[in-house]
């Protein structure tokens, strides 16, 4: 009786492990392929049937990628864009979220509906007006241009509003009685209580900004003002693409995100769990 129970438990555990192993392989394989391809020659990368391990490990692709793209500028632009988008999204969403959750003002619900509508619409439809606005004030090909659509975040506003709604009103009232004005109550009491939600939003904003391709490609056409994602996209030729060089460039572009992940692993996982994106 016991042994059959144990056997079925073992089989179940083995099944679960097999499932996860297959899942991991599916997730990891593209990265391994990218890594291996980055050491192949162009010919070897196109060969059919494909080889898995490169015949000879050659680092030329890396030097080529570094030569064809101003990597230092791309890193800097990407870092600045991520930094400002995260700072702006967290600060402004926090303020807006607090207002929608805890303050009473006219047309609050109507205004919040607007925020929700903005979340529901595909972001592509905002690209043309946003580009026109920037072009008119001559701010294309600038860091501000990259940051601009991320200055405020409808998702962030919604997300932090939920966080503020989870804080009992009595805490704000206690702060009010203790002598806080509205601003002090926000800064000293309410905002610190949403720290974990802010961290989650920061992680999300950073990941999204890092992967954003369309907007950086449109707004900054000067290679020196591009981000990693848009810069890499320029490696694609119209008729032929040097895949090994592109893979080498992609690997180089991945480094900052991997480092960021290693530092903020906890927040990354919390963020995914909190937004229900797991």
């Amino acid at each position, binding site marked *: 009786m016991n042994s059959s129970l144990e056997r079925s438990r073992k089989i179940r555990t083995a099944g679960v492990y097999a499932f996860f192993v297959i899942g991991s392989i599916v997730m990891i394989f593209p990265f391994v392929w990218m890594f291996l391809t980055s050491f192949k020659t162009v010919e070897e990368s196109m060969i059919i049937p494909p080889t898995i391990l490169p015949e000879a490990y050659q680092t030329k692709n890396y030097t080529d990628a570094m030569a064809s793209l101003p990597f230092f500028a791309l890193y800097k632009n990407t870092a600045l864009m991520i930094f400002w988008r995260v700072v702006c999204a967290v600060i402004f969403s926090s303020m807006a979220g607090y207002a929608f959750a805890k303050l009473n003002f006219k047309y609050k619900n109507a205004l919040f509906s607007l925020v929700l509508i903005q979340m529901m619409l595909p972001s592509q439809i905002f690209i043309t007006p946003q580009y026109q606005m920037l072009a008119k004030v001559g701010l294309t090909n600038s860091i501000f241009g990259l940051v601009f659509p991320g200055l405020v975040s409808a998702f962030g506003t919604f997300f932090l509003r939920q966080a503020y709604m989870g804080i009992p009103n009595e*805490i704000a009232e206690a702060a009010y*009685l203790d002598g806080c004005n509205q601003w002090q109550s926000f800064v000293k009491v309410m905002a610190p209580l949403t720290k974990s939600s802010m961290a989650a939003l920061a992680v999300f904003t950073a990941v999204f900004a890092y992967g954003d391709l369309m907007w950086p490609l449109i707004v900054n056409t000067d290679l020196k003002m591009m981000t990693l994602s848009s810069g890499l996209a320029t490696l694609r030729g119209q008729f032929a693409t040097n895949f090994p060089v592109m893979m080498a460039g992609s690997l180089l572009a991945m480094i900052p995100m991997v480092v960021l992940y290693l530092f903020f692993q906890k927040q990354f996982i919390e963020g995914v769990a909190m937004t229900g994106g797991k």
Partner: protein
Amino acid sequence: MASVQLKNVCKKYPNGYEAVKDFNLDIQDKEFIIFVGPSGCGKSTTLRMVAGLEDISSGELIIDGKVMNDVEPKDRDIAMVFQSYALYPHMSVYDNMAFSLKLKKVPKEEIDKKVRDAARILDLEKLLDRKPRALSGGQRQRVAMGRAIVRSPKVFLMDEPLSNLDAKLRGQMRVEISKLHQRLGSTIIYVTHDQTEAMTLGTRIVVMKDGIVQQIDTPQNLYDHPCNKFVAGFIGSPQMNMIAADAVEENGEVVLKFAGQNVVLNENRAKAVKAGGYIGKKVVLGIRPEDIHDGAEALQKFAKSSFDAEIKVYEMLGASALLYFNIEETGWVASVDARTTARTGDKIRLAMDTDKIHIFDYETEKTIVD
């Protein structure tokens, strides 16, 4: 410390709902006032108006002779203890207590002294570095009290501060609050729906129902002389037994008849019933459980107010026993001597203490005589 006056205070919400109607109260310095009543009676709303968390729709709130209607909560010199304690979760116990003083820019040494003094009074000295989440319910409650104490306010407001604690802790904290009141000599306004808290803590109790003050009196007076049926039923546990009865005059005596039973009233009660013109009319008879007896001596003494009962449930409480029985469809309870021989299913005779019978007007529910 301070006196507080509420003059014709009303609270009307934009949707027309009147939460508090014409509230009048004069609270003396160092009084411990309790607002008590069922849920939704307006007691918390009144407290929040005193705190400044709700606007006063009409009427005046006066603290120490100054009208406070339009004064910001922080400038009213009050401190409030919330039902949920409302501690700041990201601050240590020390910072929670020091927060209001820091905002007032009180010198650091003074803050430290006040916080440590309060911590000593409340036995929180070892917990000052902890965050609220690492505290038990009772400890959190004490921190909430400490946060109020450090401000040395004119008036303490407490909104059901013990309702989140278990029964034993509630009993302990009740004693602590009582001691604190004596020690600080402060004016306290305390909201509760627990009438044990109300009876044990208050110097005076305000009983409210549907936004209207029913009676303001000392605990003893409220218990002995409730002004109407609601107060009589609300104060006291188990609550007062009541039943509708016909008042008739027989052989010069006033008799209350109900469910085939007759209760002859004593002289002063008979006089009041007659004077009020209630003969031939319906009234409500009320009697507290401890004023119903089953002993032979009492049955003899109150023979004219005795009646039959079949015991449905017998509950032994140790010092006394509760006998549950029905009179018509109404459930009654008698609190008798623990040595009673009556048990579930017994048919026995019980007697009401005629000096303790309450009689209420059937229509207006106001007390005729008690």
